């Protein structure tokens, strides 16, 4: 029995490789808070990942509870922060974006469903003070009726 020709194997693998390279979104930061976003139906897809900064709000994960406690905290980039760290965070993000695209910067707020509105409200107020008005409340697609 002749050996099966594997000459086209690299081509097939490369095809798969390119597929995954295109759809890949690199995880930009390790999450230190638990975030499970609520479900909604009126969703907009976030365009252009380079113009999106992420704000996470949730209870610290079990590993981090010793340091940060159990009440909801916010995470900017890869560290747990306070409300008054937001201006610097936004400014640093802005500096890396070409000037013409700056008005299109969107803040994606990823909030755990169990968090109460107090901390979310504080973040919203700070974003408004900083003139960062394009906001996206991250959510999953809901399939069943209310």
């Amino acid at each position, binding site marked *: 029995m002749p050996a099966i020709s*594997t000459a086209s*194997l*690299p081509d097939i*693998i*490369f095809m*798969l*490789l390119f597929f*995954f*390279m295109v*759809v*890949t*979104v*690199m*995880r930009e930061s390790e999450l230190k808070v638990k975030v499970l*976003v*609520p*479900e*909604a*139906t*009126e*969703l*907009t*897809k*976030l365009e252009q*990942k380079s113009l*999106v900064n992420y704000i996470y709000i949730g209870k610290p994960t079990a590993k981090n509870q010793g340091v940060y406690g159990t*009440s*909801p905290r916010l995470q900017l980039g890869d560290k747990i922060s306070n409300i008054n760290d937001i201006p610097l965070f936004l400014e640093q993000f802005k500096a890396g974006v070409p000037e013409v695209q700056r008005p299109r910067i*969107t803040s*994606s*707020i990823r*909030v*755990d*469903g*169990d*968090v*109460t*509105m*107090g*901390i*979310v*409200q504080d973040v*919203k*107020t700070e*974003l*408004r*003070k900083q*003139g*960062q*008005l*394009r*906001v*996206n*409340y*991250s*959510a*999953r*697609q809901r399939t069943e*009726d*209310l």
Partner: protein
Amino acid sequence: MAKNSSRSRVATEINASSMADIAFLLLIFFLVTTTIDVDKGILVKLPPWSNEPPPEMKLNSRNVFSVLVNANNDLLVRKKPAELAKLRERAVEFITNPNGAPDLAERPTKAIISLKNDRGTGYETYLTVYNELKAAYNEIWDEEAKALGHPGYSDDLPLEVRRQIKLKIPMVLSEAEPTAFGDEK
């Protein structure tokens, strides 16, 4: 010399057997790092911050659809307890006022939806309520788009058409500062 160069043109082929291994390696790397789920969410434009208190506005109460969500995640719509599942339907009825009822909005352009929550309101409830109110507008815009001969309202419609629809039925969703009930210490 000439003989030498002609031999190199016949050329030994590059051994490509390790190509598959390299490609596999890269493939596995991307497989592991991939998160396919795309980021989606409710896009909101926040109002700019101003230090002055907003001007008192005299509004005819028929034009205001007030929604309150308290710290127990209960809903109060137009001063009466309401159900979340009926919110969308009621908002649509309020904005369009198909039968010209005297207690619903005079015109869609005059309709104002006012949303207020406590600091203790759950985020999930808040977002669901917001989602329902936005869905109400999307439903009406969808109807408008169909009346204009388009398949439905979406971001694929020409900007001019979307602007025209939004001019006819503007989305006015005003969010009041929350009250401090039920805040986490």
